[in-house]
């Protein structure tokens, strides 16, 4: 039998080139950071059992799961609404995986850790750039910290939410996209941000 050695790789491994892109000689207006190696579990209530799942999830995470388009931070995870009676559990370092969540939650769970790419977008021109891609009103009055949306960008389904602000006060928009669409959407994002200058990075750290 052939022994395989599996290496986890980002779907953006080739497309993402660390550095700057687009306009030069100005301070980059956009910061694009891919967050790698996260744990992402999709949890869906079974028919007629949303209340039971809500109770079990509250016992597990210590907070009520979002029942509207919102993202809720816990001490070691983010719970993101992804549709009626369903949510994502996003975390790092194996704290919330299929093995640990399946016995604790009475719903249908599926591991999406390697099925999604997570990109965080911030910077002085982030909202201007996102206006080219998204029809969601991202003004702070309409889309405050913790707001989320199941929506589309460039005809591709994404999960979008506003994370905690950067230390300099700039808003941070997180986009969770299908792995197979990520390279296409990444290039679209670079094109949209080019005129403002883009700082490109990747990190293992979940903000």
């Amino acid at each position, binding site marked *: 039998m052939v022994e395989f050695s599996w290496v986890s790789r980002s779907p953006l491994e080739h497309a993402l080139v660390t550095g700057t892109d687009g306009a030069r000689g100005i301070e980059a207006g956009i910061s694009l950071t891919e967050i790698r190696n996260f744990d992402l579990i999709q949890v869906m209530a079974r028919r007629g*059992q*949303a*209340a039971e799942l809500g109770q079990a999830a509250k016992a597990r995470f210590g907070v009520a799961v979002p029942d509207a388009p919102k993202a809720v931070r816990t001490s070691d995870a983010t719970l993101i609404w992804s549709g*009626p009676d369903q949510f994502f559990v996003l975390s790092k370092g194996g704290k919330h995986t299929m093995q640990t969540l399946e016995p604790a939650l009475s719903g249908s769970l599926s591991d999406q850790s390697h099925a999604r790419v997570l990109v965080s977008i911030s910077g002085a021109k982030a909202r201007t750039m996102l206006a080219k891609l998204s029809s969601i009103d991202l003004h702070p009055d309409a889309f405050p910290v913790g707001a989320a949306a*199941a*929506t*589309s960008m460039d*005809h591709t389904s994404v999960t979008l939410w506003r994370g905690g602000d950067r230390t300099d006060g700039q808003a941070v928009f997180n986009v969770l996209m299908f792995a197979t669409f990520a390279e296409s959407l990444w290039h679209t994002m670079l094109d949209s941000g080019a005129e403002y200058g883009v700082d490109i990075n990747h990190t293992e750290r979940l903000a």
Partner: protein
Amino acid sequence: MRIACSFCGERELGEFTYLGDAKPVRPEAGASEDEVFDYVYLRDNVAGATSEYWYHGGGCRAWLKVTRNTLTHEISSIEPAAGAGAAKVGA
């Protein structure tokens, strides 16, 4: 046209797919051939308020039942279709 999804709020038309008339009800088993023919093929071509199914595939992936005026595109009511959202449906 914008549709206010019962779960997501108002969204652009591009996030939705039109399924069709929400009025026909599947006949009971043993219904006559005429009743089945009517259910499968015959549709009213309404100038005015119609009830129709829309799918929020570019968003929360829920099915919606929308009452829309075909003359003005004005939407008078939107509700989750039966089965949209596990909590909304009995066992």
